[in-house]
């Protein structure tokens, strides 16, 4: 892997001038900038860019609230601990959710790859597996919310463990991310059923799989930042 990246950096140096010429040509003289890219893919990327700003606003808001809070911030390692086999393991619930979401990203990447190869059966199967991982993640999040609301008494406006801002940022950030996962599961199931029914074979264009994949990887990407800033910080 490391060797592969090293080799690629080397050869990228040789093509840097052509790709810079490409960028000038793409953006100039009444050209459509993204004409070399499938329109759906370009649109998905631009949507994801706007979504990046939404999640960044949430995370920046969380940063502002947390660093201006005068009451102590709850220790997330203890709040999200689980008792397994009589032993309390810190943050384990969130760790498992992270591994579930990463696994779903792995299966999705392979689904996209089999989509390129027009392998209907494997593409649909891997997409359904991805959706199952996603549904598992949402289920665990429902468990997490239930525990926090009913056992700890956290509300969007109140938090018995300390700073009330914890409740507000927790429900906003994880809620909005969870909504994205749920939408992703629905999207994946729709595209997977279309793949299985041979809908994309008529035109031979499997781009929809790749576009759904972009969305799904983005959901995983957002979780990487939430995991780092909200749960680990």
């Amino acid at each position, binding site marked *: 892997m490391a060797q592969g990246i090293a080799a*690629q950096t080397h050869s990228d140096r040789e*093509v840097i001038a052509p*790709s810079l010429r490409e960028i000038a040509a793409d953006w100039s003289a009444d050209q459509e900038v993204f004409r070399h890219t499938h329109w759906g*893919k*370009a649109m998905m990327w631009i949507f994801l860019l706007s979504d990046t700003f939404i999640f*960044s606003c949430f995370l920046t808001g969380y940063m502002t609230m947390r660093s201006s809070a005068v009451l102590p911030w709850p220790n997330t390692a203890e709040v999200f601990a689980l008792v397994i086999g009589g032993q309390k393991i810190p943050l384990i619930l969130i760790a498992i959710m992270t591994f579930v979401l*990463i696994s779903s990203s792995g299966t999705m*990447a392979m689904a996209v790859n089999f989509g390129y190869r027009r392998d209907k059966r494997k593409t649909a199967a891997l997409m359904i597996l991805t959706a199952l991982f996603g549904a598992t993640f949402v289920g665990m999040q429902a468990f997490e919310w239930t525990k926090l609301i009913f056992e700890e008494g956290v509300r969007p406006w109140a938090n018995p463990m300390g700073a009330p801002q914890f409740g507000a940022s927790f429900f906003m950030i994880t809620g909005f991310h969870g909504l994205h996962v749920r939408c992703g599961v629905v999207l994946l199931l729709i595209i997977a059923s279309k793949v299985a029914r041979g809908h994309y074979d008529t035109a031979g264009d499997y781009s929809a799989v790749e576009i759904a994949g972009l969305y799904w990887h983005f959901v995983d*990407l957002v979780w990487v930042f939430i995991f780092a800033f909200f749960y680990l910080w």
Partner: protein
Amino acid sequence: MQDDPPVAAHAPDAAHQGQQHPISLYLKVWGLLFLLSAMSYLVDYVHVQGIVRWTLIILFMLLKAGLIVSIFMHMAWERLSLIYAILVPPLVLLVLVRIMTIEANYAFWTRAIFMGGGG
């Protein structure tokens, strides 16, 4: 990865033909993401604190984000126009973060000094 020459990926029709990468590439990245997640979990588990903790968290976060965007989302094989259009705009968010740091600092001291630590 040797059957994936980056030069060929820059050909204009690469985006239309789809990309052929060996499945092993995705499995390797998957493994790396697992490893990085486990390591960031360990940062919390072994109670690393202070500047080391924050540095490690951000390091593992950026490595994971980089792997997802470049390999899983195929950004490494896209045209430079698209890469710049998507990856450069979020950098302005650093300005927002800076402004809000100043604002949070102001709000904190206002609360601490004038509201008796409450509010």
